[in-house]
């Protein structure tokens, strides 16, 4: 199976936040939760770069490793998902995650930290595909409909690429080659850049964001 990946090309990101908006709209995430955010480095200075970041669906995901209730699982597509019926909202995944992806809604009546919410690669959750329950808890399940995440689809500059990791990497490799310098595939591969876990595969499958 394909292994799904996001890639954000910092040379192209213009901090328009369309991906953030698209995500919120598509998944109807609760107030205060942003599954995706755009971070700008050196804002206003030479060398300013922006980067759209969400869960990078790590292999050997740290969140899954530290979860006290073991609610994470990785789908056949390599998407890291979690079961909200088990999550207790302890926040450990947030401490372990390199990207700050896990988010915690505030419960209205109770006010305490609710169950964790994060990017699902538009792949829903453990409930039946595209059921109303799944949508309410986890947002849309575009993957089950054969579509890729809306954030990447919305990206005007084709900065954010999502899809089969091999296709995505090929697209990016070509871009870098054309740019003539060693681009940086940020957040790519294994968490904390451990090497040797993921091996390259032959390019097949599809991806959103290729020019």
């Amino acid at each position, binding site marked *: 199976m394909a292994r799904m990946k996001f890639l954000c090309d*910092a*040379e192209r990101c213009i*901090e328009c*936040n369309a991906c*953030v908006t698209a995500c919120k709209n598509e998944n109807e995430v609760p107030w*205060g939760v*942003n599954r995706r*955010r*755009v*971070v*700008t*480095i*050196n*804002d206003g200075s030479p*060398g300013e*770069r922006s*980067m759209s*970041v969400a869960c990078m669906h790590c292999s050997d995901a*740290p969140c899954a*490793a*530290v*979860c*006290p*209730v*073991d*609610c994470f699982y990785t789908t056949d597509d390599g998407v890291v998902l979690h*079961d909200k*019926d*088990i*999550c*207790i*909202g*302890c*926040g*450990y995944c*947030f*401490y*372990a*995650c*390199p*990207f*700050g992806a896990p*988010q915690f809604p505030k419960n209205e009546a109770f006010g*305490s*930290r609710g169950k964790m919410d994060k990017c699902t690669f538009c792949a829903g959750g453990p409930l039946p595909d595209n059921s109303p329950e799944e949508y309410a808890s986890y947002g849309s399940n575009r993957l089950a409909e054969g579509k890729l995440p809306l954030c990447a689809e919305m990206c005007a500059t084709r900065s954010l690429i999502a899809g089969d990791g091999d296709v995505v990497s090929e697209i990016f490799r070509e871009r870098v*080659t*054309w*740019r*003539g*310098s*060693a*681009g*940086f595939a*940020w957040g790519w591969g294994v*968490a*904390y850049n451990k090497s040797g876990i993921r091996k390259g595969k032959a390019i097949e499958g599809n991806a959103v964001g290729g020019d």
Partner: protein
Amino acid sequence: MATQVQTANRHRRIIVWSLMLLIALMLFLPLIPYALAYVSPEAGGVPNPGTELWRAVRSGDKGTSQVQGVDTGVLINEYGEAWRHFRMEQLIPFGAMLMGSVLVLIVLFYLVSGPLRIPGGATGKKIQRFSVFERTTHWFTVSLFWLLALTGLILLYGRFVLIPVLGPEGFGLTASACKEAHNLFGPLFLVAILMMLLTFVKDNIYARGDITWLLKGGGMFGGGHVSAGRFNAGEKIWFWIAVLGGLVLSASGLVLDLAVFGQGREVMAISHVLHGIAALVVITVSFGHIYMGTAGVEGTISSMTNGYVDEAWAKSHHDRWYAEMQAAAGDDEAEQAGGGAAAGVASPVAND
């Protein structure tokens, strides 16, 4: 004027061609480096202006984000991996080993040497060791301690021990209940520790003879009788481990609990490390305390239930305290006799 018209046309052509050339140059000249890079990629000497930037980002430099929240400007959390390593590969296995081995040692010790009996047996005469308030403070702290220790241990080890028993959803429910109870009762433990500190600190300050007591292992080696005041050196050490450990637990716990002051992941991770270490140390040492107070030393438990101990117990384990109590009681009696109070009425307190 044909020549004038021709001159004007020529000028116009020159201008148009020049402009076209300029535009062509503007479009193509910047491509030269790219073309060069394409021909010989290895020779590409043009550095990516982002490279330095990413290096900085990886080491935790902050950016900005439209999304408001804790640490949203941080692209890479540099402490996550260290924290994960501590929790999963150090705290959980070593903590289990520590607690388990101490429990095994205590059981072995009990099987080998048995309980410490009162020398000469109980006399039946009782003296008060702990007041109502002291006992209330103690058991209040005990209740909170075990409520927090059990919920905490369930959160730490439940994934390995309880998920096979309860199933993932059953354990999720249990863990959620434990987390909420742990967070709610945590701050009360600070109250208990402070009550404990105020109630018992005056008898837990280092006194002469404590070193001797320790050197003789509380009478286990070296022979001879070991002298002690109201609390012996072992009890004093436990007191300070419990109080200081409790304060560390409370302080770090409050940081973890009150996640409303915008503390970032760095602070949370450090607090978590302190919290975990302190908790496991205090829990482990408490095993020893519990053993000594119940099965380990005959006649001790009553000091914390009804507040009274046998005189022989007091003489044997806390001889200096016993002497002080006798002196104080003597003073009281002398005072009463002098005051002419009804001596015929036996005080029923001691019979309780």
